[in-house]
């Protein structure tokens, strides 16, 4: 499947032309992208470190995880919209950039993993980790921690590849 045509379309779009006109506005959009990353990864780190029993131990995990959801969605919206704006300005360069594709693969994996496995496992965390009271059906503690580590690694890769696009 040849995806390059999407980048060609983006490169010729009015958005691309607009994004290339004002460097000051572009810089502000970049700041929004970084701030969205802080919100997204910050909320994910909070949840994952909690489930690794590294921070906020003893505090009911269900409260923490539930509270992070809204902000994760807001941050994802911000990061994707600002990302598209940034990408439009350098569309053709990104189409052939391996770090960009690695980042997109990581982003897709991260979103799917977070919404499916991570969400399901965290809501079934055993008492010893979750501190939510006795659970009738709980996933084993080592699995919960494995999921947390996997999530941290995926999102680290997304961020690191993202930063490396800037250097390549």
């Amino acid at each position, binding site marked *: 499947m040849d995806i390059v045509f999407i980048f060609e379309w983006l490169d010729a779009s009015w958005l691309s032309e607009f994004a290339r006109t004002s460097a000051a506005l572009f810089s502000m959009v970049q700041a929004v992208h970084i701030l969205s990353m802080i919100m997204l990864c910050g909320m994910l780190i909070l949840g994952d470190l909690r489930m690794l029993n590294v921070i906020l131990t003893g505090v009911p995990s269900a409260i923490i995880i539930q509270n992070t959801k809204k902000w994760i969605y807001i941050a994802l919206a911000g990061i994707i919209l600002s990302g598209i704006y940034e990408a439009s300005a350098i569309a053709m360069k990104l189409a052939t950039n391996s770090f960009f594709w690695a980042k997109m693969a990581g982003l897709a994996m991260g979103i799917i993993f977070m919404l499916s*496995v991570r969400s399901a496992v965290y809501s079934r965390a055993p008492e010893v980790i979750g501190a939510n009271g006795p659970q009738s059906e709980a996933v084993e503690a080592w699995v919960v921690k494995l999921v947390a580590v*996997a999530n941290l*690694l995926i999102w680290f*890769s997304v961020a690191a590849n993202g930063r490396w696009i800037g250097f390549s």
Partner: protein
Amino acid sequence: MTTNTLGKVAAVCSIVIIIGWAIYWGVQVQDTLCLLETATAEEVPECLENM
């Protein structure tokens, strides 16, 4: 999906992700070291052919 099955699926997915992560970044580190060697070496090092 029972909790038991979920646990197994989650464990497998996570292990695959962690191993994949290690392989990906292992390759990145290898390539970086190769490029660093290329920059300082007088002759073209072997590692470039494998990149």
